[in-house]
């Protein structure tokens, strides 16, 4: 039985609502066009069309297994070895999902932080400078500056500034996560993809990361997967709701959390899973 007042809504409610960003008014940093992902024969992501506005934070929300990581990882080709990604991913007029793209070069522009912290078995400092050096930055002052700035931005500097030569593996899980965020920012990417970066953090470091993201927004386009609704509501400008390998709704965060248009989104943001 359906309650009467809900019936009124469901009649006119769409299954999907994907907001289109007007490219005349807003600059689009990245756009996914008909992106589908297969793991073997199994389709993990249905055709997805999303545009991400430059210098904004977009959160991807949805239940576990709904395909958020799958989609996010496709955006900088991290799924190349595990699955098949179809469709176009446009970045600066280039389809970065095509085979002639230099993925290593591309990933310097589109950085990623994973769900589980993965520092290298190197010192804290080397964790940050290693990739920089490989990319040809040799100047000692420049390297030191990047270490300091990125660690400050990731809210870790005060805790490690005296122990930069210690192994990164001696840090706590939360510190490790902030270190890998610093490591990603140090490369000065254009777009930052974050897969639940705060899920292993205590509320205080998590709040620090949120501040960091809001600050980074000035210079970076950020796409973040999160299970934390409040976090999504607090930091992001846009939100996409994933459900069973499909984006059901994409809109301004404010709208998603106050007046969503799709029933399943309403259920999810209100915490009714059924």
């Amino acid at each position, binding site marked *: 039985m359906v309650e009467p007042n809900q019936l009124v809504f469901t009649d006119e409610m769409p299954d999907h609502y994907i907001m289109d960003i007007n490219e005349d008014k807003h600059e689009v940093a990245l756009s996914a066009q008909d992106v589908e992902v297969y793991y073997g024969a199994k389709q993990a992501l249905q055709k997805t069309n999303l545009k991400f506005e430059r210098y904004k934070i977009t959160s991807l929300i949805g239940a576990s297994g709904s395909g958020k990581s799958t989609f996010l990882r496709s955006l900088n080709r991290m799924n190349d070895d595990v699955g098949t990604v179809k469709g176009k991913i446009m970045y600066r007029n280039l389809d970065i999902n095509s085979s002639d793209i230099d993925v*290593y070069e591309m990933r310097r522009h589109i950085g990623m932080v994973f769900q589980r912290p993965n520092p290298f*078995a190197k010192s804290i400092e080397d964790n940050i400078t290693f990739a920089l050096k490989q990319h040809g930055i040799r100047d000692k002052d420049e390297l030191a500056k990047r270490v300091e700035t990125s660690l400050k931005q990731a809210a870790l500097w005060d805790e490690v500034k005296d122990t930069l030569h210690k192994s990164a593996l001696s840090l706590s899980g939360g510190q490790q996560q902030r270190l890998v965020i610093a490591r990603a920012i140090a490369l000065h990417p254009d777009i930052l993809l974050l897969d639940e970066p705060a899920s292993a953090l205590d509320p205080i470091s998590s709040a620090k990361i949120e501040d960091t993201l809001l600050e980074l927004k000035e210079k970076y386009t950020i796409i973040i997967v999160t299970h934390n609704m409040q976090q999504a509501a607090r930091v992001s400008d846009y939100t996409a709701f994933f459900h069973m390998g499909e984006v059901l709704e994409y809109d301004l965060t404010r709208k998603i959390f106050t007046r969503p248009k799709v029933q399943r989104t309403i259920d999810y943001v209100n915490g009714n899973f059924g």
Partner: protein
Amino acid sequence: MNAKQVDKIATGILYTIAGFVILVLLALLGYILVQGVPNLSWHFLTAPAEAFSAGGGIGIQLFNSFYLLILTMVISFPIALGAGIYLNEYANQKSKVIEVIRTMIEILSSLPSVVVGLFGFLLFVVQLKLGFSLLSGAIALTFFNLPLLTRSVEESLRTIPNLQREAGSALGLSRFETIGHVILPAALPSIMTGVVLSAGRVFGEAAALIYTAGQSAPALNFADWNPFNATSPLNVMRPAETLAVHIWKINSEGIMPDAAAVSAGASAVLVIAVLLFNFCARYFSKVLYRQLTSSK
């Protein structure tokens, strides 16, 4: 019985088994050392062997063993490293060809060393006319060593979590850079352990060498380090009886009056040498790991 009691009994049984293994090992080691160490002297370690009279040493055999070990490692380690990296990092794990290669490596690794020796004899000594020589021996030992060493490199790399590889690629590093600077350093201690274990096997191997490196130890001129001279210790084309082959030979056909003592002494040296470079390699791999990963 509750879980706690079961746990106690299981622990007890495991301790007993472990204790038994350790006891057997200690007994063996103790026997070899007690029998052999009294025969050791500087003269014994450096003098050439005597065929008919007492008082011979094992100097040349000892040198041969180490030299052959080094030659073998110089040939087999780079190959095993490359093969192991390819198999674990580059090869398509689902491919049938790779599966066949893995099976072949497995089969090769269980090949009896006598067979490897005879194969080496027919192919290198006879067909390729390398004669009984260090080179023939080193190649035979490479055949003997390669499968296990490759497997151990591959296994060492496999224990490094994929998160590390993803970390590298997400930073725009190529697979090669990530392997060279992240994966290999992290796997190094475990690779070193594999190398040492195989070095022990190589050092103590006799059967594969009898018909390849030969059973004679011609006198060497330790003042001549030009590898092209016949009596130079470095010459790889000379026949070279190793310590293990020497022990085998003394025990099967030794006619010197002190054969038992020489055999016991040589065995002790063999065991001590293996133990020694075990400890050294462990120490070095620790130091190296610390340097490469800057962990304290």
